């Protein structure tokens, strides 16, 4: 029987996502838990697994489609007749106790059930079940054989879906071919209008004429979308696909306002409509309009100068691009530079690194910085906040979670260490290693990527003297770490030079929330603590 794959709860507070890569194709065999589709949220890209073994019967979404939790994205043909749901019926007795009703089963597709009669009743935890009365001619649940001759009007099967003859089926997307006919309608004089209307009517817009044998499930899926008749008409006129609208009414009912909003979204710059791109015969190449929509730089025709090859951006890349663009456009950022003498820190590290390794962690500069940053965020609470522009308030967080930037083959991933202030350095060092590994193995979950207040990005392992990291919204600051180098440092007051290990640090901050002096103070404090941990006590 056919089962639906729906978008599950991806992560807390995540209701929508965008379909990234569709991993399987129609006809593929899948196993339970095998990923079938990639869904991108603001936080991460997640694979959605199939909940069943079976064969992919239908894929209802395309790459780039916006989906919500609960949306059906695929149909899987599952072998056997297992019932996902058993349905029960409450027998309601009247106050006199006259037993009017019989209790019956609604086991899906299970024909054997009816023969068990009363004895076979199953209980739903919510409803009591009364035993079925066996009356003669109890045909409960049996399929009625329609005699071939009795081409029925006697058949009172009011289920539209079965009995609309060979009417062509509404496909799940409800799209119409010949939408361009709409574009032909012009608002001229009545006579011309009629002529055009007549021509259009005669030209055959509407669903492509075919043999009309859509699957019952496809119909069921389309008809499952709650929308009043007037709203359905409105959607059709507006060229809006009901399957792509999120209903704002009770029970996810699609209202006329939802249709209007969907139409405006589609028409507004920055709105994305894949189908619009494909079907609109406006003459403008879609690439051009897409570029114009995002205010992006129009690409020249590179083939003038040589060959090119197109490479798809993976989901992580796309998310990073989106996030960084938003940060760059919305946050006025300044980077403060400083240096810390980590000679002592390095001595500490060398002394204790084996102990930490025994515990499964790695005593790194990053781990140490995480702990120091946790103290810093407590001392300078404004760096541990977010800016709420809707009411001009600062959201002062009472917890401290810090993210670490990890370079993986998929791109930049930032797992978050929760409660960095509460954990000892040993635990932090273990967790850092574990999360980084998870990130590189592509096993990190969206939850592990959320909730950070501050980020540390350490590129020192690779090299470089310094960089200007970009604030990761909704955070307000980020610490960049470059390569520590041995330097000749003039010891003040002694007139001589010593070799010291010097670590370049850079702090980028959101200037709407943090001013230059604050930034300098914060970074200097970190450097002071690195140089002399006793500074922590002050």
């Amino acid at each position, binding site marked *: 029987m056919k089962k639906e794959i729906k978008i599950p709860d991806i992560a807390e507070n995540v209701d929508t996502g965008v379909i990234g890569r569709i991993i399987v194709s129609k006809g593929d065999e899948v196993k339970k838990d095998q990923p079938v589709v990639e869904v991108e949220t603001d936080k991460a890209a997640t694979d959605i697994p199939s909940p069943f073994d079976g064969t992919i019967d239908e894929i209802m979404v395309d790459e780039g489609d916006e989906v919500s939790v609960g949306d059906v994205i695929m149909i899987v043909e599952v072998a056997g007749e297992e019932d996902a749901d058993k349905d029960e019926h409450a027998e309601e007795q009247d106050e006199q106790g006259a037993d009017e009703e019989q209790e019956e089963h609604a086991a899906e597709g299970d024909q054997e059930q009816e023969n068990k009669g009363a004895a076979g009743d199953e209980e739903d935890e919510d409803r009591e079940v009364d035993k079925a009365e066996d009356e003669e001619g109890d045909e409960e649940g049996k399929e009625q054989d329609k005699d071939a001759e009795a081409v029925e*009007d006697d058949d009172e099967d009011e289920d539209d879906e079965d009995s609309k003859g060979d009417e062509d089926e509404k496909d799940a997307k409800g799209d119409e071919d010949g939408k361009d006919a709409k574009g032909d309608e012009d608002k001229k004089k009545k006579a011309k209008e009629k002529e055009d209307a007549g021509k259009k009517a005669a030209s055959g817009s509407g669903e492509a004429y075919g043999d009309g044998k859509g699957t019952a499930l496809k119909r069921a899926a389309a008809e499952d979308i709650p929308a009043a008749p007037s709203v359905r008409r409105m959607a059709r006129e507006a060229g809006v696909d009901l399957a792509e609208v999120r209903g704002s009414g*009770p029970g996810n009912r699609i209202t006329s306002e939802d249709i209007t909003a969907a139409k405006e979204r589609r028409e507004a710059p920055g709105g994305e409509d894949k189908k619009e791109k494909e079907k609109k015969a406006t003459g403008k190449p879609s690439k051009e309009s897409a570029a114009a929509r995002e205010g992006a730089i129009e690409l020249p025709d590179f083939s003038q100068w040589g060959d090119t090859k197109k490479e798809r951006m993976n989901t992580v890349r796309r998310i990073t691009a989106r996030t960084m663009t938003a940060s760059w456009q919305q946050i006025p950022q300044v980077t403060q530079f400083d240096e810390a003498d980590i000679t002592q820190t390095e001595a500490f590290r060398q002394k204790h690194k084996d102990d930490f390794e025994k515990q499964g962690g790695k005593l790194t500069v990053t781990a140490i910085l995480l702990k120091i940053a946790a103290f810093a965020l407590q001392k300078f609470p404004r760096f541990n906040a977010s800016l709420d522009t809707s009411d001009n308030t600062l959201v002062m967080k009472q917890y401290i979670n810090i993210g670490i930037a990890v370079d993986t083959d998929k791109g930049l991933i930032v797992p978050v260490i929760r409660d960095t202030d509460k954990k000892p350095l040993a635990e932090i060092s273990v967790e850092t290693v574990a999360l980084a590994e998870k990130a590189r193995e592509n096993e990190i979950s969206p939850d592990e990527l959320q909730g950070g207040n501050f980020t540390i990005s350490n590129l020192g392992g690779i090299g470089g003297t310094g960089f200007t990291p970009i604030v990761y919204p909704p955070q307000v600051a980020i610490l960049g770490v470059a390569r520590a180098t041995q330097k000749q440092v003039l010891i003040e007051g002694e007139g001589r030079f010593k070799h010291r290990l010097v670590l370049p640090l850079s702090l980028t901050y959101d200037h709407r929330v943090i001013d230059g002096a604050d930034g300098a103070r914060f970074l200097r404090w970190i450097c002071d603590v690195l140089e002399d941990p006793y500074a922590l006590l002050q």
Partner: protein
Amino acid sequence: MAKKEQHKDKKELIVIGAGPGGYRAAFMAADLGMEVTLIDKEEKPGGECLYRGCIPTKALLHAVKLKDAAVAADPMGISFSDPDMDVAKMARWKQGVIDKLTGGLAGIVKGREIEYLQGTAKFSNDNTVVFEATGGKSTELTFEQAIIATGATPLALEGLEPDGERIMGSEAALELKDVPKKLLVVGGGYIGLEMAYIYHGLGSAVSVVELTDGFMPGTDRDLVKEFNRSAKALFEDIFLETRVKEVKKNKTSLRVTFEGKDETFSKSYDRILVAVGEKPDHAALGLEATGVETDEAGFIRVNDQQRTSVSHIYAIGDVAGGPLLAHKAMYEGRVAAEVAAGKDIANDARVIPGVVYTEPEIAFCGLTETGAKEQGRSYERVKFPWAASGRAAAMNEKHGFTKLLIDPESDRILGAGIVGKDAGDLISELALAIEMGATATDVALTIHPHPTLSETVMEAAEVYLGTPGHTMNKKKR
């Protein structure tokens, strides 16, 4: 008022058949500014529904139910002696109803300035019909668009063809020529049962023979079961899973040989009424001269805009298949007309209610339990028994229940089935609820008047939500 100019050379829209589908399409098209030509063999619009179907049967059913109710009024302190049945008068009254309604339709045709042509039409190609006026000449009419609404005709069974005398189709049966002492109704669908009900009310001893194992195949069994309770008193014999093997026409009776599941037997009757279904009526339409396609059963294939394989020719109603119901034809009529007038709309009705006008009446719409099982669709079912309805008690009604099928995840109403007095008048609320995507809460929170039968709909929703107003609460929600 000046008559609209008729284009003599090319008709903008012709509608063939003035039954519920045809006249509805014509009226809609005229309202949308089209010039419509409506062709039908009767003098006035109405089709099978008015002349030989819906209206006359409902009129007679009303009369018979009235009599039955009066006869059963004794417990309330009112008794009658045996009623005088003047069947001829009843037939005249029924005819009066038909005349009144068809007259009204004819008036609307004039008022909307629709060109009404009495006669038949036959296609000679995709753009031309030959119109043959009743008792008159033929003219060739070319058209831009056409709507076929020619309906369906009763199926005949071999050996049981209506003979104009003792073997009747429903049309002949409605003429009420006489009241047979013993009547056999062949076909246990809704037409057979309604006719059986009428004749039982007129005084015949009625038996029914049905091929399947129950009445009204396809209808949920619990609804039929409720009907069966009263049916036992209605029928002398009920033969299920039985077919008529042979009919021997003797001088004074018809000897019918039945072939049942286990045995073959014979019985005698005065009349036989055959109601085994209908087939699409387009044999004389000349479809073979067009590109219009039909399916294996002969119904005209249409898409969701009611277009046939020739896109400027539409088909609606019984001739296009689906449930053979007048209201479905009417809806399709308006869709076809709107599309023909240039609107980008489609037939997206989710619910076609059905009513069986026996007593108790049966009405249903939306998802049926039978249909749900076929689709493997999950649902939760609740019933409100009319034994707990104040109004039913006050009406001395003993039978009936209101059943709702609800989607367990969204609480939306998926389907409904009602059995009881005037069930047909209660079902429309559910049709609207389903079309609007209403949930059980929506229905439960809509104040229904008390005491009414419609209240049972709200009560059923409350049963689902776990806080019923007039029955014991068994749910632990």
